[in-house]
């Protein structure tokens, strides 16, 4: 997994609430048993124009298609981002497109975990801070970059804004180190075996 320490980049404001994982990556875009090849389907329903279910090229009005936002790597968005389906494809698609961080007032719980597992930093900030960042970015997207520092847990801009964000220690560590959760947990094999030996006595009915 890709580690995350610091990142500066173009931030795209997509200030809608309740953006669900079906919107992030529609089911029609998940065509193979693979974690790859999903970037193109990111936000497909909004990003492309359609005529009777056939794609007719890009929708020029969609934020990520505007020339100023080419190369955007930070998404500024609304409450409850990533709600809905558990599809980790949403995170894979965002990562493949080039996003490194999503800034929202809150996230769908499964999406949040999925993001952390893939080195995509989910940052929770109050709505008014996000609005301030969005306003600043929109003035000149390529120039007015946003700076994220996970070590200090801050989001800042050259305009002097600096916001602190909260993140659980476990998530921060995993992201900073780029650690693989399975390898970490396998180190506890002894404890797992010990637990099961005991548990089998107390809850034998739970073991098939």
């Amino acid at each position, binding site marked *: 997994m890709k580690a995350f320490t610091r990142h500066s980049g173009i931030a795209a404001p997509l*200030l*809608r*609430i*309740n953006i*669900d994982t*079906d*919107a992030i990556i*529609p*089911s*029609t875009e998940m*065509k*193979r*048993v*693979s*974690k790859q090849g999903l970037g193109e389907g990111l936000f497909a*329903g909004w990003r492309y124009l*359609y005529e*009777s*279910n056939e794609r007719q090229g890009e929708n020029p009005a969609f934020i990520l298609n505007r020339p100023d936002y080419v190369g955007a790597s930070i998404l500024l968005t*609304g*409450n*409850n981002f990533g*709600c*809905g*389906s*558990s*599809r*980790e494809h949403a*995170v894979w698609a965002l990562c493949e497109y080039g996003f490194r961080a999503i800034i929202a007032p*809150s996230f*769908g*719980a*499964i*999406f949040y*975990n*999925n993001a952390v*597992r*893939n080195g995509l930093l989910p940052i929770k900030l109050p*709505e008014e801070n996000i609005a301030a960042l969005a306003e600043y970015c929109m003035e000149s997207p390529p120039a007015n970059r946003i700076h994220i520092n996970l070590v200090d847990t801050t989001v800042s801009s050259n305009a002097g804004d600096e916001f602190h964000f909260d993140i*659980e*220690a*476990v*998530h921060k*560590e995993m992201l900073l180190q780029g650690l693989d*959760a*399975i390898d*970490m*947990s*396998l180190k*506890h094999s002894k*404890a*797992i075996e010990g*637990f*099961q030996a005991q*548990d089998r006595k107390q*809850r*034998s*009915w*739970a073991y*098939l």
Partner: protein
Amino acid sequence: MPKTLFDNIWDAHLITELDDGASLLHIDRIFLHERTGSIALSSMAAAQRTVRNPGHAFCTMDHIVDTFPGRSDETTMPGGKQFITRTRQAAQEAGITLFDLDDPRQGISHVISAEQGIALPGLTIVCPDSHTCTLGALGALAWGIGSSDCEHALATETLKVVKPKQMCVHLDGKLAVGVTAKDIILHLIRTYSAAGGAGCAIEFRGAVIDALALESRMTLCNMAVEFSAFTGLIAPDEKTLDYVVGRPYAPKDEQWEQAHAYWRQLRTDEDAGYDKELHIDCSAIEPTVTWGTSPQHALGISESIPDPAEEDDNSTRLAMQRALNYMGLAPGTAMNSIAIDAAFIGSCTNSRLSDLREAARILKGNKIAAGVKAICVPGSSQVKHKAEQEGIDRVFLDAGFAWRESGCSMCFYAGGEGFAQGERIITSTNRNFEGRQGRGARSHLASPATVAASAITGFITDARRLDNSA
């Protein structure tokens, strides 16, 4: 210290508290399906990891397979066949029990894990699917995870979890006749927003819960995730034990006695506290239907669509405007005046036998309105079989509904099937998101009774207007 139901299950599964603030929890059962399970299993194989306890993992075919009679591995979903065949192969290689297309136990994962007794009170159960919370109705700690966590659970029989905050939703009063669990959960989400349960483990309690049948409790817990909860759960009671007894994977004989004793004490201690408590007076709830593109866009069926201009919160107002635009509706429109093009009964929310019986009661002796496309998809092959034994299939067919094989079907895109651009669907499913049931398709979430009644009249309809037997 007094403990909640959630604390009790959590503590019984706690292997160790980790230095980083997370807990390593034991996972008792893992359920997979061919869309996300196939990826988890392939990715594990690629990393040369093995499934630690294949006996505790199960897999079904529900998300990709189509639901047409005589179905096979071929589907019109692009790449669909690959998901099906790869899943079959991966499950076999890993030694996981697979409920394949032609297996009489096949069905939607959350329906069959309860039906087969794989999900039990007091167990931890995960599935790479957000509606795993359905099984909280049994008093299990069940939640949806992503593929990476699924691999973690398969490889280690554990998950690293940060203990969620806890909420209690008290469902007080008495439901009016014709009002169902679906109406309660839509009402709750409407009242506190789709983010109202953000990240919480929610215990549902109260007189209404005591009175609800087990399958209705599943409908309620199913949509806890639409409330943005970590999961929903309900303490097991006699109804739960009656439901579980004799199911294929449920404990038997001496183990049953042991389990029975364990489950009977599985509840929230008297003075245990929650981080948050909500009270809902259920007596006041009427059949509830969504009008927009979030489950929080819901209304009592006698109400009219609100005017975004009257909404103070900026982002909520913008979302309402977008939703009205997508749905092709105007503020002030009475819910029960909205004409529909299609009716769908199915999904892990409302496709169990009791749901089909309820809809059939309304449909019996009626025909659906001209021009309405109506489809019923039983939640499992077993539900389908039992319904057929009761003659419920005939009622649906005679009314003009299609009667399908079991699976997720048009709840989203299973079998590559969706509703058409602009088509308006009254649906017993759980998500009315943009494009969920087809690009540009307009979904109105409702109970099976409301769906059946609306199919008959061609308009969103309160079933109590038609129902003489209630």
